[in-house]
């Protein structure tokens, strides 16, 4: 029995929503309708992140990693961030996406360790002013305040010993309000 789904896909840096109607015809074999146009797709996983995808005869070695509903896709060297939502998730997202200004959480954009902290909790900071220094691969990276405000919280400690202050991508570093 054919499995069918409807998804709403958006791509970072590209306008608009893509309506995807997906039909699984057999193992690895799909008919995918994107914005009204049908594609025949043969889809096989090769290893951890590489997929062999043949779309109407065109062959792609796609590198894809998945984080929840977001997909980091590399096709022929081009990078795409795709979010794929079903009807329900799409509605939920529309409800919560009224933008919040004011409180800004600063997260680590790369893994590394916190070498120095330049501001204390309670300090006034300007937009673009460095709050701490994150070291990754021998290079120092200033972590700057995204806005004028007060440094409300610090989630990390600095150390010259990398083992004691390692941070991963997405780790919270500080809050400015």
């Amino acid at each position, binding site marked *: 029995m054919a499995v069918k*789904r409807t998804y709403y896909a958006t791509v970072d840096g590209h306008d608009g929503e893509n309506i995807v109607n*997906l039909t699984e015809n057999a193992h690895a074999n799909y008919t995918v309708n994107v914005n009204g146009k049908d594609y025949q797709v043969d889809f096989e996983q090769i290893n951890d*992140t590489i997929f062999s995808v043949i779309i109407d005869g065109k062959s*792609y070695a796609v590198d894809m990693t998945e984080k929840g509903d977001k*997909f980091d896709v590399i096709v022929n*060297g081009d*990078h795409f961030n*795709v979010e*794929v939502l079903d009807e329900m998730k799409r509605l939920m997202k529309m409800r919560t996406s009224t933008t919040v200004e004011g409180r800004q959480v600063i997260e680590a954009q790369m893994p*590394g360790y916190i070498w120095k902290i330049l501001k204390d909790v309670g300090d006034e900071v300007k937009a673009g002013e460095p709050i701490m220094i994150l070291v990754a691969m021998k290079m120092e990276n200033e972590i700057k305040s995204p806005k004028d405000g007060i440094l409300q919280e610090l989630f990390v400690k600095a150390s010259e010993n990398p083992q004691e202050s390692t941070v991963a991508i997405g780790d919270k570093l500080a809050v400015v309000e």
Partner: protein
Amino acid sequence: MPEIKKVLVANRGEIAIRIFRTCRKMGIKTVAIYTHADRKAPHVRYADEAYCITDGPGDTSYLKKDRIIAIAKKLGAAIHPGYGFYAENADFRRSCDAEGVVFIGPSAEHIEMMGSKTGARAVMTEAGVPTVPGTKNPIRDVEDAKKVAREIGYPIMLKAVYGGGGKGMRLVHKEEDFESSFRMASSEAQNAFGNGDVYMEKFIIQPHHVEVQVLGDMHGNAIHLFDRECSIQRRHQKVIEEAPSPFISAETRAKMCKVAADAIKKIGYYSAGTLEFIVGADQNFYFLEMNTRLQVEHPVTEMITGVDIVREMIFVAEGKPLNYKQEDISINGHAIECRIYAEDPSNNFSPSPGLLTVYQTPEGPNVRVESGAYQGYEIPLYYDPMIAKVCANSKTRAGAIENMKRILSEYMISGIKTSIPFHIAVLKNETFLSGVYDTGFIDNKFDMEELKRKQEQDVTVPVIVASIKQLLSEKISASRAVTRPEVDESDWKRFGKMINFSKTLG
């Protein structure tokens, strides 16, 4: 000098493996050193022996002179320093000598001599190598200085003697501006460095960074292995090198290479070395500095000459004469090297360490890969972000570029970002293709924004594959009850354990 039967490489990553390769080929045993952070680095497995030089995971430094020399002494191993770390460290070399450990590199005296830029220029001038014209001494008399500037020819550059970072520097295009520029430079230097002394140097327009590989032995023999063009630099870091230089003329090449070989013969230099030159648009060349070590980019020279430079360094350290005379060396084809960094070129080259979930190196003809990584390797935070060097060669420069594009298209790396898209963009750049590019290439001739623009604006393919993956993930979630794996484990460890499971059960 005794025969070398074992070599300890006081280094890590691709250069350690590259040196081990030559040793393995020659039947010489190999010794790796490693830090706690590098326990799983590939050079540890490649060697016949491996010794940890740190006391705990908190210490990530390879600069453990006494331990390294003690290990080598105990094992009867010679030490090759690679590049960086203890390469070009005269003190390290002297300690090796004192402990009776063979050091595969030049003498302490030569390392020291070339360690000081001004000292090196003085020695090389003495040895007949042209250097950038100018006064080495502080300017005391403006009128005298103007006379010198006239001789050198404008434009000239004024520089603070104790300066750095661009402060106290002034470019002077014509004599009318000399005096005011001098006063400004001097006062800026005074304010910045507490000393207003300023000297003068010829300013080279559209400078090219071209270097000459040399080899000498302890018997007074010295040869050159021709030149390399290294003008594609980002933040003073070389990213693409080629051999021979597409810019210099046959006449310049002949002069430059001869001058380099003659100079090292004159100063009695032995082992491998590199003379860096700045070459002007007018093909005049001036010595900048000498690197008394194996260079990162030595493979391109090996590809066009067929000489294994590490093998020659080992022979020379054994006290043997070079295996080649100058007339044995000729240029065969053209070679290009791309340095692959764990950096995100579309995000201002920010570091991108992490787990290599997929790592497939290019294959086929005309490829040389020198890699310090493997699938499943977690690139550590603490060291140089260069994970591999990829070289391509062909009979012609155009062929080597064609080959390199094919080769880079095959390099599959997942889990981290790399500089490969940047290299591909350079390989398509018209100025690069013309072969006439200077060290201002990245700033003046290259569109960084290009990297952020996608060639394919159509999002149909990514939308299709992401949607199918979403469907598959939903089906798996729905059909199984699963427990959450420990959050403090890396994906790879988790994978390892799962595999072990299935084996235990299978």
